[in-house]
């Protein structure tokens, strides 16, 4: 009798069992993945480099060091004494400052481009999947059509017709890259559509677009985050590709692609640092995003539980 009372008291006094939410579970799984955590640290450091770089750089990214000009292969070497930690580029501009700037722009293009494509793609896919039927067929057929077009050429056309600007680059990259996202979002929506809470919402007379925004999109979030993380590196690759061709970011602005292009053009003179430093940042950042993306997929994708 007393024993049961004591047990009951114990139970009453005990903390309620803490439920493990989906996100806490995912975080634990993510943190157990060493490659993903390493990727996250690398990304953090690269972001710090982009943000704090301008504060510690002894040179401005636009100023030409006249002492170096004319003898870049010798005097422009990376050295601590001259303050050109990464050396200079072929025009005698400080490569550290330029790499910092290129990192800022490449990261920005990557993140903004991924954001545009995620927003457009998720909404498009959710709408197509939610309404289903003929609307779905037409909308997804349009995606199929757009997918079979060599988008990079269309993007270059856009850049040439409407002028080369950062804005156009964002719009162009965002516009051509939402297609995969739309397909993924649609597939998920199809299975969410028949859930009870959606039926309940329909039964209580909630408007379709409110249902999509309130009930469908939040449940797509896990998948969306995973693909957004994997989209950022591909946006960075697109942008670098276009800048490599000289059609993207214009001087005095620069990006990894433009820097890699400049470095590759100067390779014959033995100035390998011009290629090496931008390339290093490009490669580690892509690695970082891919590892984090894979880690998030393992953590959030319900298929692999």
């Amino acid at each position: 009798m007393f024993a049961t009372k004591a047990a009951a008291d114990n139970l009453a006094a005990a903390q309620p069992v803490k439920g493990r939410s989906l996100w806490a579970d995912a975080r634990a799984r993510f943190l157990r993945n060493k490659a993903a955590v390493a990727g996250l640290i690398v990304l953090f450091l690269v972001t710090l480099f982009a943000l704090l770089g301008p504060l510690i750089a002894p040179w401005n990214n636009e100023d030409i060091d006249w002492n170096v000009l004319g003898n870049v292969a010798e005097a422009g070497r990376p050295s601590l004494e001259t303050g050109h930690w990464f050396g200079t580029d072929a025009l005698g501009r400080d490569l550290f400052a330029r790499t910092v700037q290129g990192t800022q722009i490449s990261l920005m293009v990557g993140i903004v481009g991924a954001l545009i494509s995620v927003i457009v793609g998720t909404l498009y896919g959710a709408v197509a999947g939610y309404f289903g039927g003929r609307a779905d067929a037409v909308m997804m057929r349009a995606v199929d059509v757009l997918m079979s077009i060599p988008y990079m050429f269309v993007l270059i056309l856009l850049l040439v017709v409407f002028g080369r600007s950062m804005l156009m680059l964002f719009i162009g990259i965002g516009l051509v890259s939402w297609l995969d996202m739309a397909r993924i979002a649609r597939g998920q929506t199809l299975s969410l559509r028949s859930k009870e809470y959606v039926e309940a919402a329909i039964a209580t007379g909630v408007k379709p677009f409110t249902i999509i925004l309130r009930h469908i999109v939040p449940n797509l979030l896990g998948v969306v985050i995973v693909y957004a993380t994997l989209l950022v590196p591909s946006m960075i690759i697109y942008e670098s590709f276009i800048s490599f061709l000289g059609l993207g970011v214009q001087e005095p602005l620069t990006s990894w692609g433009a820097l890699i292009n400049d470095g590759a053009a100067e390779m014959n003179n033995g100035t390998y640092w011009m290629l090496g430093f931008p390339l290093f940042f490009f490669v580690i950042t892509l690695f970082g995003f891919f590892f984090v993306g894979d880690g998030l997929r393992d953590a959030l994708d319900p298929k692999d539980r």
Partner: protein
Amino acid sequence: MLVFILKRLLVAIPVLLILIVGTFILMYTAPGSPFATDRGIPPAVLANLEAQYGLDQPFAVQIWRYIVGIVTEFDFGPSFIYRDQDVNDLIGQGFPVTLTYGFWSFVVAVIVGGALGILAAVKHNTWLDYLAVGISIGAQVLPNFVLAPILVLVFTLWLGWLPGGGWQGGQIEYIILPVIALSTSFMASIARISRASMLEVLTSNFIRTARAKGLPMRRVIFRHALKPALLPVISYLGPAFVGMITGSVVIDIYFSTGGIGQFFVASALNRDYGVMMGITVLLGTLTILFNLLVDILYAWIDPKIRY
């Protein structure tokens, strides 16, 4: 089968029309005349030039002529910058080059990538598997415009084995580096896809049955596992084709191979709308036709698809 192919062709035609009309509208709305120069050009001369190229006609007439020209005579129109050349000349010069190294890149990517992926899956969790996975992760962060300078640095500047550019009528040593630069990332993707699907197939019931009745592993893989394992690879071929066409621009620019991408970028920098439009339409057409081919191949191999 014939009905299936015909149906697919019927779907491809409106897609092509959309591509052509879309490109045309983009070029039509482009601000400024393609003949405008920095020094300015007398209005009378400009009007004459535009009349010569038919640019003074209403939009509907222009686009009708353009489409009819492509369909009936395979004529992609004139270049607005080089008066003595039209788009067909440029395509005739550049296309064989692009086709040559593009074809070899495709072959290398599919065969090496497929073999690597399947080997990795069969020898799961051995050094071979780790090597294949390592290669495919490494190649992910080395897109062609990054790989090309590295290859030239190593094989041309340091080792001096291969020329760092040029074409020379397509001699083998001029093809090797472009093919490696173009095919590596696709090879890696194909390796990853075929490894994953082969692993999945190898754990399925019909493979266990085949093993249980005493078939040797080699026969199980070639007779039973290979075909279903290759299906995801086949559906990747379409995107790979688009990627290679896009990548060929970088190859042409970096290795000065003189392919079609070089003309495309040159025309983009010159605002030579005629050439840009022609090349976009041509490559779009090729892509759509290739996707059609992939669809047919897929339907032919996949027993689940009935047509």
